[in-house]
């Protein structure tokens, strides 16, 4: 059995490798790299949330995503955020229900910094994909995660969860 330290060290090496890979792919195929990272994240999100309980409540779904990340030792800590001029944490818009999220510890940001790569690139799309995959399983909704601001010590994003049930027919039936 590998020790926790060995697992962490291999995760770190994998992330640094991913950072280099993503940067190389961006140079080779441009914006298409975003879709590759997005899909990789989406598959991960779907796989990790396979057994997560279903809910239509966005705050409950976000708590489930946090639990899933912790359970899988993923260093992606986030929290919902309500600035002073926002009347409610969850805002209903034509595009869907929106929540602002602050991301603190993030293994993607750390691997980008380690390599001197810029933020908001294709690897950051992996997080978007992860949320899409997990929320598709948990809420049966399509969602988007837009980066509003990428900072040195935290990032600020807008999660929009569509209000209609996803048309994705690949979803397994669950009670």
């Amino acid at each position: 059995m590998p020790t926790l330290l060995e697992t962490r060290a291999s995760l770190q090496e994998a992330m640094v490798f991913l950072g280099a890979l993503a940067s190389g792919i961006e140079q080779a195929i441009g914006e298409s790299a975003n879709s590759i990272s997005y899909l990789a994240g989406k598959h991960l999100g779907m796989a990790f949330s396979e057994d997560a309980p279903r809910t239509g409540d966005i705050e409950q779904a976000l708590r489930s995503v946090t639990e899933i990340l912790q359970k899988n030792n993923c260093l992606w800590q986030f929290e919902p955020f309500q600035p002073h001029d926002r009347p409610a944490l969850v805002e209903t818009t034509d595009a869907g229900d929106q929540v602002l999220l602050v991301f603190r510890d993030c293994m993607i940001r750390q691997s980008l910094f380690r390599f001197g790569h810029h933020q908001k690139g294709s690897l950051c799309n992996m997080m978007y994909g992860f949320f899409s995959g997990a929320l598709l399983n948990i809420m049966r909704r399509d969602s988007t995660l837009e980066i509003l601001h990428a900072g040195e010590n935290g990032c600020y994003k807008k999660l929009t969860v569509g209000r209609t049930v996803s048309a994705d027919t690949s979803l397994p039936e669950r009670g």
Partner: protein
Amino acid sequence: MIEIEIHDQSCRGCQLCVDICPTKVFEYDAAQAKAVIRHAEDCIACLSCAYLCPSGALTHGNYHVVKNFYRDLDFSQKMEKFL
């Protein structure tokens, strides 16, 4: 709550912090030609303002410092018990 301060005498009024802050914590006070803190409660501690400020006039306190990747495995072994 995150604490944030502008060192008044250092601020040169360039407004970089006003422009970069994603949650509109600062405003520009034209009379004083300096940045002022309007909504400290909205600071998410992204630290972009502190990194950008050419005068080093901004300081933050009581915030979560993100965990960096390990550089040294022996050192990280010692850290394990806190993680």
